[in-house]
């Protein structure tokens, strides 16, 4: 796979990313800048960064693989997300930005602790974030390593050191500020890749007419709106991916990074629109790979995840190099955001929850140390963890959504949401996610009708938050801090 053009594009991408990441340190003046990029960036940078951090490597490789295997089933995930960006801005965007105006918030646990006046909520949420971050990063290690190894022609270990070494260094130097600034650049690379792929896919297959007719005549189920999944699966996918996005910490953190409240205005449109463009890659790469196999142009794929690689093999070298850069961008942008979030949880939130806040001047110093240690731990875990990585990786997205969504979506919109409700929903999310993990991965059982277990966890956590809040009183109504109350009522 490695050739001079690909190597040049990939190295150029790495160098530019590194320079941008390190440059971000100029913006970092306080611990809040380092951990949360508090009020540092405008609408365009934060919105493109929000889309880039949500679109992970899965969208570039796993998504097309699912289309290849199941037809339209997985489209219900990616087609829901643009609506999710709007819901994110509507439901939590304004309130988080208003709170950021009155308090030096730098992390989600900061917001949760302010809303629920509880260090227990801060601690539980921070611990949840650390667990989720390690689980997610672990899954990215091998994926990123294999991609770089194939592109540069180096061994797997060297490839892992290159991709995570670069990400670690710039994130350690400038924290969330580096993460957001590089996410912006990486988001632009992804958009160029997505538009290029769409054009090439349509030219290669003779437009949508040639593409879908060829596939449909071979297997009509692959081109119908359900594909090979079940209705329960796709409908719940649409629901949780439309709503669950706003519970993702790497999206929520972008709201307090906005310089001005007016920067909220175009954010949903830019983020949602960018995601819509990039989801075309998910759709058309998957179907183009099917078209290539059905048309006998390439042999049947051994694994669905090879769909993206098989399609890219048909593109001009320079174009595939740009798409590979986009794939690296997708992996690195999500990884850097998670490293910064995990670091902030360890250095800032967990000590605060235990009543041992570090001195602000030392927080950044410790942040850099913990960024390095967390990345090294995640790399070792990802490389050696094998089965454990696969098990914990399954937690990832759904765990974040079920843990944070009730706190943000209900907590910031309902004055009667209580501290007890928040704690109960956090514990419910933890218990259900681990319970379903054992049920599915260890016991090998499945919920009926291919129902995604994280959809159940998310809905139950939301219901627990509402139900417990109705019968308890802590940090609700008159007990709210006045600025939080004003933000909810605005």
């Amino acid at each position: 796979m490695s050739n001079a053009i690909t190597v040049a594009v990939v190295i150029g991408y790495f160098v530019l990313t590194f320079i941008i990441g390190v440059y971000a340190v100029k913006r970092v003046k306080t611990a809040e800048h380092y951990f949360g990029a508090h009020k540092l960036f405008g609408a365009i940078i934060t919105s493109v960064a929000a889309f880039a951090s949500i679109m992970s490597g899965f969208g570039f490789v796993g998504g097309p693989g699912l289309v290849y295997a199941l037809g339209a089933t997985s489209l219900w995930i990616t087609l829901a997300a643009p609506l999710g960006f709007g819901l994110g801005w509507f439901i939590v965007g304004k309130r988080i930005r208003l709170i950021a105006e009155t308090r030096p918030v730098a992390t989600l646990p900061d917001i949760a602790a302010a809303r629920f006046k509880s260090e227990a909520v801060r601690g539980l949420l921070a611990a949840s974030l650390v667990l989720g971050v390690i689980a997610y990063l672990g899954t990215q290690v091998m994926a990123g390593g294999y991609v770089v190894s194939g592109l540069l022609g180096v061994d797997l270990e060297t490839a892992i050191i290159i991709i995570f070494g670069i990400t670690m260094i710039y994130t350690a130097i400038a924290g969330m500020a580096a993460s957001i600034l590089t996410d912006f650049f990486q988001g632009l690379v992804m958009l160029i890749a997505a538009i290029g792929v769409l054009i090439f896919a349509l030219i290669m297959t003779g437009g949508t007419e040639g593409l879908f007719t060829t596939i449909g005549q071979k297997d009509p189920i692959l081109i119908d709106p359900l594909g090979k999944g079940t209705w329960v699966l796709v409908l719940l996918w649409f629901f949780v991916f439309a709503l669950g996005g706003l519970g993702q910490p790497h999206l929520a953190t972008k709201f307090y990074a906005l310089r001005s409240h007016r920067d909220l205005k175009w954010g949903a449109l830019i983020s949602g629109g960018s995601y819509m463009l990039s989801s075309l890659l998910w759709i058309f790469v998957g179907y183009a790979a099917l078209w290539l196999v059905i048309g006998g142009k390439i042999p049947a794929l051994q694994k669905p995840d090879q769909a993206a690689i098989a399609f890219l093999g048909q593109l001009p070298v320079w174009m595939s190099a740009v798409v590979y850069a986009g794939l690296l961008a997708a992996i690195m942008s999500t990884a850097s955001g998670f490293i910064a979030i995990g670091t902030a949880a360890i250095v800032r939130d967990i000590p605060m929850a235990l009543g041992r806040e570090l001195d602000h001047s030392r927080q950044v110093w410790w942040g850099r140390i913990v960024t390095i240690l967390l990345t090294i731990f995640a790399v070792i875990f990802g490389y050696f963890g094998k089965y454990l990585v696969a098990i914990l990786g399954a937690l990832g997205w759904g765990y974040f959504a079920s843990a944070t969504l009730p706190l943000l979506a209900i907590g910031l919109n309902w004055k009667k949401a209580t501290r007890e409700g928040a704690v109960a929903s956090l514990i419910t999310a933890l218990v259900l996610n681990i319970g379903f993990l054992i049920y599915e991965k260890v016991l090998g059982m499945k919920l009926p009708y291919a129902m995604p277990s994280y959809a159940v966890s998310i809905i139950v956590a939301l219901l627990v938050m509402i139900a417990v809040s109705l019968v308890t009183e802590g940090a609700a109504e008159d007990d709210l801090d006045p600025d939080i109350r004003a933000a909810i009522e605005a």
Partner: protein
Amino acid sequence: MIPNSATLLLYPDVNMLTSHFKSCLILLFSEVVEISLREKVLAVNGVVMLLMLLTAFTNSWQILGYLVGLSLTLWLVLGVMRENELGPASWLGAMLFAFWAVCITLIFRYWAEFRGQFPDFTVAGMHPGFFVLFPVMWLLLFIPGTLSYALLFDRWILSDETWNEFKTRVREIEGGEKSE
């Protein structure tokens, strides 16, 4: 009605008893009916999400299809509305649900009509149900769900007036705290 001895002990005057009973009723009644608009939306959404779980576990996917649209609509309404004021949330929510209901009905219908066979007609080569999902529903939901945020921002979401009110309120709070 003749009050019994215990009641007489507590309420020597029957009029006083009636008056207290009335005030208790008013208090109770006000507790019951004074549910904010946000709470009503949230409560209805809670019931809808519970029904979603029930329909999912019983594979009643057609009902689930509409409940998903209804819940997403209620979440949008919750995000758009202000404290006890719906504003554009009503028509925005109605628009989102209408788009969802029409699209999901067509998707279900075309899926059932052409299941397992190449469809009798296509739109740009696409299965008609697929075409409704992508790009029709994809683009339609984007209008009330996302595009509307920018369009309503200055008028409703966070106008300068709202922002200034918030800043003034916070300054007053801070001033009050300092003087304490």
